[in-house]
């Protein structure tokens, strides 16, 4: 139980992998041995690659009849002791929403890879977008918390998939690798290390699986078939899983703990990256995913032109990096948020900062070019001396 180092399944070295493939490699490295999925562009390559890799490590793969079945099978497998994964994109994610709430309620570790495409609805299947940023957090009904990570490169989707499994097991929560077509279908250098740090579940026989006295703590998770006589239910339940749907205190305590175990540990989960922030830039770019690469490229060009521009990159989206965003924005005159949606994360930042935040949205199914950001900042510099 807890964190430990293991020898990876993939021989160490340099690889040239697609983002989707690297994600599958990361999963196998982290100990994922169960995958249930349904084909969808641009996420199918994760599934196709993991099928091949499971041959080497006795993984169990099933292509289910739909995404509802996929996530249901994952939850069943997770309680049978698996570290499960699925990969999907917007339309599939929409179908999974009910059981994402179930997984949050039953504290079931899952890793869901969302290779975002341009929506809504079927939209542009082969084109990138970042339209699911709020859906992963709020898509299922009721109050709950999840974790979402946002990689910007193929190396990072490999590393973050490993981290996603560790966080899922550590916090007993669904974790999203919230990527996009831009990274999922990108091929880049990936360095695979010999050793991988993984988190192993604490089974703690006899202990209540749905309660801990530690405030905001995470209870141990036993497994089907070990004689524990587990009661797992999506209804309001007491520490041992007995349904208590008419007891208001039980519901309050349960929901508070589900939310608190993530919110109170935000500092352990949140991960960001910053560029050119030391001198208190005039313009702060806040970006994530593939768009952050355009933002970094733009920041470098603008810096060369003498403009004080900095970049804060969100590697974690949920829980939202509130403290870092507030601190980074403090000394900046303007905060600009380029993203492949109509301002989803921009609005989240606006909620935190007591001032206007500038949205630089793009929803044309293309990745954002650095020139768009460069021209936007140049223009602002001229019009707002």
């Amino acid at each position: 139980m807890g964190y430990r180092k293991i020898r990876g399944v993939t021989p160490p070295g340099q690889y040239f992998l697609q983002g989707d493939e690297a994600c599958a490699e990361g999963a196998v490295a982290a100990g994922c041995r169960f995958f249930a999925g349904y084909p969808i562009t641009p996420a199918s390559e994760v599934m196709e690659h993991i099928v091949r890799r499971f041959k080497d490590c006795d993984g169990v793969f099933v292509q289910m009849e739909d995404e509802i079945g996929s996530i249901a099978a994952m939850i069943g497998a997770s309680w049978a002791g698996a570290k499960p994964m699925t990969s999907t994109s917007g339309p599939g994610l929409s179908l999974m929403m009910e059981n994402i709430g179930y997984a949050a309620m039953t504290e079931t570790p899952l890793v869901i890879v969302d290779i975002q495409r341009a929506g809504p609805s079927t939209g542009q299947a082969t084109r990138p977008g970042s339209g699911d940023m709020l859906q992963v957090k709020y898509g299922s009904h009721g109050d709950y918390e999840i974790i979402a990570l946002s990689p910007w490169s193929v190396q990072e989707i490999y590393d973050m998939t490993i981290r996603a499994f560790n966080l899922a097991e550590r916090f007993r929560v669904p974790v999203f690798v919230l990527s996009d077509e831009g990274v999922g279908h990108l091929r880049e250098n990936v360095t695979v290390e010999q050793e991988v740090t993984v988190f192993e579940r604490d089974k703690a026989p006899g202990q209540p699986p749905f309660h801990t006295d530690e405030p905001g703590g995470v209870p141990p998770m036993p497994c089907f078939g070990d004689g524990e006589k587990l009661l797992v239910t999506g209804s309001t339940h007491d520490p041992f899983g007995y349904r208590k749907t008419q007891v208001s205190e039980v519901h309050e305590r349960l929901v508070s703990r589900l939310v608190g175990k993530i919110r109170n540990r935000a500092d352990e989960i949140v991960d960001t990256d910053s560029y050119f922030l030391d001198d208190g830039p005039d313009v702060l770019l806040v970006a994530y995913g593939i768009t952050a690469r355009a933002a970094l490229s733009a920041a470098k060009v603008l810096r060369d032109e003498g403009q004080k521009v900095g970049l804060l990159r969100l590697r974690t989206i949920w829980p939202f990096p509130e403290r870092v965003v507030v601190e980074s924005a403090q000394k900046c005159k303007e905060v600009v948020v380029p993203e492949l949606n109509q301002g989803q994360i921009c609005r989240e930042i606006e909620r935190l900062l007591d001032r206007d935040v500038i949205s630089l949205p793009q929803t044309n199914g293309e990745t954002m070019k650095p020139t768009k950001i460069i021209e936007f900042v140049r223009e602002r510099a001229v019009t707002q001396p």
Partner: protein
Amino acid sequence: MIKQVRICGFGGQGIVLAGVILGHAGILDGKYAAQSSSYGAEARGSACKSEVVISDGWIDYPHVLKADILIAMSQPAYNKYCCDVVPEHGVIFHDEELVTPNPQIALSHFPVPATQRALQIFDNRLVANTVLLAAVVSVTGIVTPDSLKLALDKTLDGRHLEANKKAVDVGFQLGSIVKKH
């Protein structure tokens, strides 16, 4: 050094695969490479492009902004992307049969009879992409010939590998002729 390559044509010509092999050859040379592609929902016949950026170090923006090298395998693709090439030193390689260059584009054009040779030598137009790519490598030296061959080994298997290995040799030969012009 950073080089941006755009390969374009229609679905089914191996446009994406050519990009993957070129990018893979880049990392075998010890470089950093980023390859991406764009295509419609149909598996065959629609417009298709593949982009490769090869650099000595990490690549901030992984897509092609202006191509140093454009490789065109269809007329519509050529027409769409021929203006998006670096004016100073950009070069265009095109399939001699499938693309007629626009005389108004003042860039070096390298016509390569890739499809014609693929049909003639292999009776298989599917290796035209490899013939053309090998010619590009031979002329520009963007990756080493050895890495290109090794990248084929790592990307393909079985009968495809053998045919493509021979196609590389044909492409290298064509490249050396093109170079002399």
